[in-house]
């Protein structure tokens, strides 16, 4: 069905339902407005009624995860200094890469240059009962190694940042397709009544190049805009235009919203436009967000022990703060939470660069897993840690590594993921995924599967074709599931 018709129909049914409930006396808007100043109150009639139930209803399978926290390591982390130890590469340091491996393969900035092996710049250690091999710069992550599943055989189509992010997020290198967070909220709706269902947070770090990230990475593409990711910002309004105009008090803002909704409601009795009740609900939601978002963003009420666990201070805008916010968003029912941490693009100085990154994310990742586990939420939350690609086993300029798409590593944890295992492998130089290769569509299919969705059946029609997040590919990686 055409998406817009789907929506129209949705609205129609709402108005029918409204007629059932009896709209004449109080009316939906008035009912809700009475509750407006009590955030978290139980009845926001219009908002609730407007709440998108998701197209996958009922679910295709019993779900293992209710939500996703996706940690995007933007810039392309080196798998060779994080999760994929290659002693052979160390042994061949400085020697030419075997041409048999590299011939005819995509190459980014090393085009036309001599390709030489560049050994791992940091040592690895075995962690946990599972003996997971992780770079020694990540001892905190290592301390929860038995909670995570490392996949060392991911590969992707794209080799430049922008298309590679697009491919990771949408399953396509063509702009204009919905991102995975949009797909998931379209498919499943969200449990939150006063926050968007798909939320994005970004943070910067040291070293690497500050690669741009386009808003298209969390766009809804051809899905309706309500499924787009909402970027919660560290500075300024956390949500764009969230703050009441200067000089206008909260109660005055409420007066304005109430008057708008009352007039709209009144107008509706004349024109019978199902869009109006939707608009009333959106004004309520907007007004609620004016209270709920600042409350969400305020980490100062978190106990010191929690701040210490994550290693962050309220308002520092760090990746660690964002991890803590991710937990808070998860608690509030947000369906898809995506964090971007930038500056993993180590064309030069990968040794020092990874040290910076480790300092920024190691404790925070551990803390997120630990915190969720303590709250009993880890088993219902799928965490994914991934870059848009990996980095070459070859040196760039003697100290760095170029973009690399033939094999790299990610880790997953929580909801339905088998903990304490590793899956897949690259060849002995870390170039090509050779054992159990996993492509991006497989990762998407697996995520959807854990959320209770058959990726073949989450489909929309656009430009005459049925589209899926997994395009025409994707298979669930069953060996990593519980």
């Amino acid at each position, binding site marked *: 069905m055409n998406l817009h018709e789907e929506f129209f129909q949705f609205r129609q049914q709402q108005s029918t339902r409204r007629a059932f409930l009896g709209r004449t006396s109080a009316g939906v808007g008035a009912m809700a407005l009475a509750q407006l100043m009590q955030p978290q109150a139980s009845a926001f009639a219009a908002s609730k009624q407007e709440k998108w139930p998701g197209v996958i209803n009922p679910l295709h399978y019993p779900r293992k995860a209710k939500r996703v926290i996706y940690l995007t390591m933007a810039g392309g982390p080196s798998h060779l200094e994080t999760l994929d130890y290659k002693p052979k590469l160390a042994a061949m340091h400085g020697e030419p890469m075997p041409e048999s491996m590299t011939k005819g393969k995509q190459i980014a900035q090393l085009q036309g240059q001599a390709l030489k092996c560049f050994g791992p710049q940091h040592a690895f250690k075995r962690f946990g009962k599972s003996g997971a091999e992780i770079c020694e710069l990540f001892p905190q992550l290592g301390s929860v190694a038995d909670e995570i599943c490392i996949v060392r055989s991911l590969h992707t189509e794209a080799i430049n940042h922008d298309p590679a992010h697009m491919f990771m997020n949408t399953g396509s290198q063509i702009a204009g397709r919905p991102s995975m967070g949009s797909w998931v909220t379209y498919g499943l709706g969200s449990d939150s009544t006063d926050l968007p269902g798909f939320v994005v947070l970004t943070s910067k770090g040291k070293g690497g190049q500050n690669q741009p990230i386009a808003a298209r990475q969390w766009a809804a593409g051809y899905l309706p805009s309500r499924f787009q990711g909402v970027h919660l910002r560290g500075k300024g309004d956390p949500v764009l235009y969230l703050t009441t105009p200067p000089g206008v008090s909260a109660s005055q803002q409420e007066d*304005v919203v109430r008057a708008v909704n009352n007039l709209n409601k009144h107008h509706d009795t004349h024109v019978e436009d199902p869009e109006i009740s939707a608009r009333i609900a959106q004004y309520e939601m907007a007004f609620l967000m004016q209270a709920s978002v600042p409350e969400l963003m305020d980490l100062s009420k978190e106990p010191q022990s929690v701040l210490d666990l994550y290693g962050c201070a309220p308002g520092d805008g760090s990746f660690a703060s964002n991890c803590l916010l991710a937990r808070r968003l998860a608690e509030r029912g947000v369906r898809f939470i995506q964090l971007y941490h930038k500056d993993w693009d180590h064309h030069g100085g990968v040794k020092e660069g990874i040290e910076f990154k480790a300092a920024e994310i190691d404790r925070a990742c551990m803390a997120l897993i630990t915190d969720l586990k303590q709250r009993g939420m880890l088993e219902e939350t799928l965490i994914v840690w991934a870059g848009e690609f990996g980095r070459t086993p070859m040196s760039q300029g003697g100290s760095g590594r170029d973009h690399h798409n033939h094999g790299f590593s990610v880790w997953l944890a929580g909801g339905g993921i088998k903990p304490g295992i590793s899956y897949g492998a690259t060849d002995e130089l870390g170039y090509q995924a050779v054992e159990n290769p996993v492509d991006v569509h497989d990762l998407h299919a697996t995520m959807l599967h854990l959320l209770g969705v058959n990726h073949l059946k989450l489909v929309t029609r656009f430009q005459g074709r049925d589209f899926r997040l997994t395009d025409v590919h994707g298979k669930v990686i069953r060996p990593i599931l519980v």
Partner: protein
Amino acid sequence: MGLFVPLLFVECSFAEPAKGDAASREIRFNRDIRPILSDNCFHCHGFDQKSRKGDRRLDVRDDAIAEKDGVRAVVPGDFRASELHRRIYSQDSEEVMPPPKEGKRLTAEQKALLDEWIKQGAPYEEHWSYVPPVKVATPSGAHPVDALIRRRLSQVGLSPAPEAERRVLIRRLYSDLLGLPPSPEEVLAFEKDKSPGSYERLVDRLMASPHYGERMAIPWLDVVRFADTIGYHSDNPRNVWPYRDYVIRSFNENKRFDQFTREQLAGDLLPGSTLEQKVASGFNRLVLSTEEGGAQPKDYESRMLTDRVRAVGTVWLGQTLGCAQCHDHKFDPISTRDFYTMGAFFADIREGVIGKREEGLAVPSVEEAAKLKAMDDRIGILQEELKASSPQRAQDQAQWEQSLMNGPTDVAWTPLVPLKVQGGKGSQFEIQDDGVVNVSFAEGKVPASDTYTITVKMPAGEMNGLRLEALASERIPTKGPGLSDSGNFILTQVTLKEGAEVLKIAEASASFEQKGQPARAAIDDKARGVQKGWGVLGKSGVDQFLYLELATPLAGEKTITLVLKQTAGERQLLGKFRIAATQAPTPIRSPNVQFPADVLTAVKLAREKRSAAQQALLAKHFRSVAAQFAPLRNEIAATQKAREDYEKSLPHCLVSVHTDQMRTVRILPRGDWQNESGEVVQPAVLHFLPQPAVEGRRLNRLDLADWLVARSNPLTARVFVNRLWKHFFGMGLSKVLDDFGAQGEPPLHSDLLDWLAVEFMDSGWDVKHMVRLMTTSHAYRQVSAVPKDQLAKDPYNRELARQSRWRADAELVRDNALSVAGLLSLKVGGPSVKPYQPEGYWENLNFPARVYVNDQGESQYRRGLYTWWQRSYLHPSMLAFDAPTREECSAERSRSNIPQQALVLLNDPTYVEAARSLAARVLRQGGRTDEDRLNWAFQVVLQRTPNPQESAELRALLLKHRGEFQAKPEATQPLLAVGLAPAPTDITSTELAAWTSLARVLLNLHETVTRS
């Protein structure tokens, strides 16, 4: 929730008429059967050979009824004998069609339809949109649009709605034709004028407004994906806004759509093409591009090709050509070969594939063009003056010739011994006593690129020139002078500095220039745009010299630095060199330039033996070097420079420029740009449509455009009028605007769509004629409120027994607010503008990092369509109201209803400022009492008076806020200070603040942002 969810996703077809009992009516293949087969069967039993299963096609009747291995999929007239029937009803999961694993399932009704169709003989029809449209007869005297709509309405048992009130009509027309609200005076006048033809006159008047073109441009700019930035990665700006103004102008001038098409696809190829037509061809440059380091040209060459093919498919053909990039189209007869042959039309466009876009063509206004011409004239006069001969000049030339006969006088060059030479990591410089510098690198690791910085002290006296001696060396295996495998070097750029000050180099010449890598490229950014720098490939192994003439002589023993940038890659670096300086008079040229061989040959001949060409050569060369002409030469150079600078300051636009060095276009197997095994293809149009009558030459973009608007093309006119219909009725007659293929929707009103398409062509592609036809119909003028019974019968208004209502487009939400506030600038055209935007919104852009600076003055208050279109971070107010990012062609915007829209209208300073300005207008012009003012405000915003409940609600708000602001007057200051427009000083601030609250309510109303 459970109450309605199960209802939510019933089959979409229920809204279509004439479903019901399959057995009781005539089945039409295109309407009833093709959509079922296309959705469920064609994927494996259709056009695409590679994914075909069981060697069975169902998209071709001959194949469907053919007996294969004793099985006939379709036995016309006998569904029980048909394999198709058996398989769709099969209970066996191995046998049933479509296979369950495909996730598709036929409904009982669809199965019954298929049976009935077979029973009726399984007739096929050619796909509707590939059959040329024909006009059905309409009764004379009746409006043809209404006649056709009513014919259908009577069949489905509906009747047209009455005409809407006059104030609604004028509001609707203003919105659809201008995108602006009418003033209360205009509404009043129109309400009063009941004379015959008053409505039609209003339509004509609005179409004659300069704002008509702005309104019509919005959907066009969406579908061609017009934006101010390149899209990928750094998403940097590019020059394209003159194209946007071209679109506006074309709609205003009612440019015929066939010409509009030709100009955009091939304006540069039109005979005697005008500046405007060249600007139009900027259409081909609206693709996404990248400046990302490490991007591979072949990759992006392929992306740009596919981008262009998809665009033609969406904009003109309504065909999803993009689906054929990797494989033959699954549902439509579009082959992969079609895809790449269409792409080959654009192989002649000259452009860099990766990297910064060029400035483009200068687009002067009439006045600016006149100024340019005056400068050109002046240059012409000066050049004539230089050329002119006189007895005196002849005599001087003879003397000069004599001096040449004596041979070139040696210019004295003083070698300089560098004080210091620095390079990149690992570079080592050995400076000899004679000034020669030998370059080496640690561990012999020569980098791909490097930059040498040489510090020298100049000798005493006035130096007019420098010489860079690139020296051959025995230490270099190739003998040099360069370190690359070929012995070449490329001097990307040479810069001369005294301290931080850059010394200008007037001229560069060389002992030898590699083809395409001239000396000038090393000192001239513009020349280097296409070239890498000065190179000597072809004559390496020997010493080569670069001569630099200084613009201003360098006096006395100064310490200067030379920066030799060598960044062409591939180790094209100098291996041995020396710097020398000279006091010789200007011009400082390489001897072979100053005394070119042909000049010397000519001089040596007796005067009477010289050919005319040789005489001219000598006269010209004499004038280019003799000191006596220096003032004239300088003036010419200065005027040329001034002209160049002036031209640079003019608006520019990326345009299509043809090159004979066309890119090779191959069919890319599975769309893989790294696979070069595919066949090389030439331009050709879709194979299954009527072909252009061109023979014996390669087809070009103009042929493509001609083909698109040929009378025999069944698609273009339908596609355009369908989009136009959507503009005025909210939904296309075929609702899928960008897919007229099997997966789209056969138009419900096929007679009407075809009638309009033919009329469009008959009228000579007259857009205003079509707009007039649509807007003067009764169908357009109906009320938009939905009677309850109709809502059930026709929920999506497909039958057009009423008008539709929808939330206004993003740009118009803004325009309306600024207009009623009295803030809107009505200026047409010009560079894109930057309205207020939240700080830090661009923080994730980089290369370079950017800070958004909003415009001041009038530019702050321009119409929404002039907003700076940053593809990766579109202005958040626009985005909230569903303006597309224009990364892809978009024929239809979604119309969402999200909380961000409320936040924008409530809190975006644009709307807060507009509310305050509206409040000031109300207080100044709206009368004396609250009631008068309230009525006036309502009239301005909604073109109606408020009813008692509305008044009461608003008065209550006004009173409350008035009291609150009076109690706390200091709160008004920050509120009234929002925005650039100065707050009025003649109005009490508490009163203004209270009315601002009220105005905010009005600007936020659903009715305000709704076109009804």
